[in-house]
């Protein structure tokens, strides 16, 4: 069974979003890293990039496939996890911890409530 922490928000595109007060942290879920298998490369965005809702900001490559990562909500990227450049396997080993991808300042923090909670995501991937 995939791990789905209770304190996070989720998207259908298998990303998790953590509310850190003035910004959010974004990564891919345990379910996603399992499905992707071993991640070998990530193309990371620059800090300062502004994104529309569902804007593509990174590409994750595994032995099997290449998959885009989307911004769950509109906002600006304020920090990028550069460690992934040399160690993309962190997304496999610690998807909710060291494997985080970016931090974003959202245009509207209250829009977070439109995302799925853990129970909603569990139901989504059970389908």
């Amino acid at each position, binding site marked *: 069974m995939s791990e789905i922490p209770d304190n996070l928000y989720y998207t259908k595109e298998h990303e998790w979003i953590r509310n850190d007060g003035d910004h959010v942290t974004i990564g891919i879920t345990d379910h996603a890293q399992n499905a992707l298998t071993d991640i*070998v490369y990530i193309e990371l965005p620059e800090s300062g990039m502004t994104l529309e809702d569902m804007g593509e900001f990174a590409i994750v490559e595994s*032995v099997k496939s290449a998959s885009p990562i989307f911004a769950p909500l509109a906002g600006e990227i304020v920090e990028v996890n550069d460690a992934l450049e040399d160690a*993309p*396997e962190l997304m496999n080993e610690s998807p909710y911890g060291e494997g985080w991808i970016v931090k974003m300042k959202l245009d509207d923090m209250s829009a977070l409530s439109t995302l799925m909670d853990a129970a909603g995501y569990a139901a989504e991937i059970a389908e």
Partner: protein
Amino acid sequence: MSHLFEFNGAEGKGYSQPSPIMDVSKLKLPGSMRRESLPRWPRVSEPEMVRHYTWLSKRNFGIDTGFYPLGSCTMKHNPRVNEAIAQMPGIANIHPHQPESHLQGLLSIYHEMQEMLAICAGMDAVTLQPVAGAQGEFTAIRCFQEYFRKTGQTQRTKVIVPDSAHGTNPASASMCGFEIIEIPSSADGRLDLDALRAVVGEDTAAMMITNPNTLGIFEADVVEASQIIHDAGGLMYYDGANFNAILGWTNPGLMGFDAVHYNLHKTFSQPHGGGGPGSGPIGVKAHLAEFLPSPIVGKREIESEDEHLYAVDDCWYTWQTPESTIGKVQQWHGNAGAVVRCWAYYRRYGRDLKTMSEHAVLNANYLRHAILTKAEEAGVTHMFVEGAPINVCKHEFTISMSPAKESMGISAMDVAKGLLDMGYMAPTVYFPQIVPECLMIEPTETESKETLDEFATNFIKVLQTDAEALHESPTTTPVRRVDEVYAARNLILRYEMD
């Protein structure tokens, strides 16, 4: 006896070079461009070099060594008569710079091939320039783009692809600057017309479809899909990767497509594998002909005595540039050798190519049936499911190893590696991506019933192998299981001398 670079023992060399034509000290090269040490050519004699390459060839696996059911790749036999014709001096020894008068033989082959390819796909004009299927896709989408520019429809910015498409389709359209709209397939693995209707509009430039699709299923609704796209003002692109299943029975023109690429290295028996050389001509309907890349071969009446001397037919073949050409997509005239071999194949079989595709489909259905039957007899049906619910397939079929992965830890990759130990090339794995743990099997028309029966038997034997043993596979190949993750994370693209 192993590696050319490691075999560096005795002083001396097995090659000779002419002396430099001028005194080296007179060369005024900037210091930064001078090499500091001599190149490290392998110090091997001719027999040692021959042994090196023979040793390499013995580690090779190809269609000439065994059954090669690599789905989507159409690894068919390459008739040797093709080689005999391609190696005739008048074809093999010409240079693209030679004048047209020296090239009439080759140009006549090109011209006939353009016409034959146009006929079999229901198209009006053909270019032989692209050297791969994906380059054909790019070329055709560029032609679409110029067509829309010329007709003032630059608002058409979106290209629709089904989620079962070859990855090259969205990649080619994206390289041309189009936005990609992916639509989901229906539950039975076919086009979902409702999903298509939901995304077409004034911004629709094109739709790209493979038919039969990558699950080996014929898209029965393809004519209706063409209608929907055409009603919206868009164009239809046919990915010819699976043309081997329908050649002579129907064609993309009848299905409503505006452009198509041919994989000469699949359908028309150009040898391929290991990167080429491929050939991916495209055919288009008349409204797109003016945009094709140049040159294409046209013909006119013979105009002079001189031409009479050189002509091979009662006309003069000549390079032509289409009026609104997108330009060149390849140096010279495409992969001429591939075009000639495939022309030879096409001429050899002619209308019998209809039987070829019939047998390709028959073989795929026979093998699918043999695997399902033998799985039942052996009691291993719980290990896999079919990639799509079908009664019959076309030239290939898919199997999902998901049940075995979940209950026994046996993945599609494990089965593929187990098949290597049985002396086969593995089927395509993990494609199409809509089938989890996918094995994609395409036997082609060139295999006998005995080969298919034996493969089905051995396939079941692999499924009966215990998981632990299978995780060790392959054990009989020159290279054991490759650590793909390590290889992808630590790219080494050349031999490192030190």
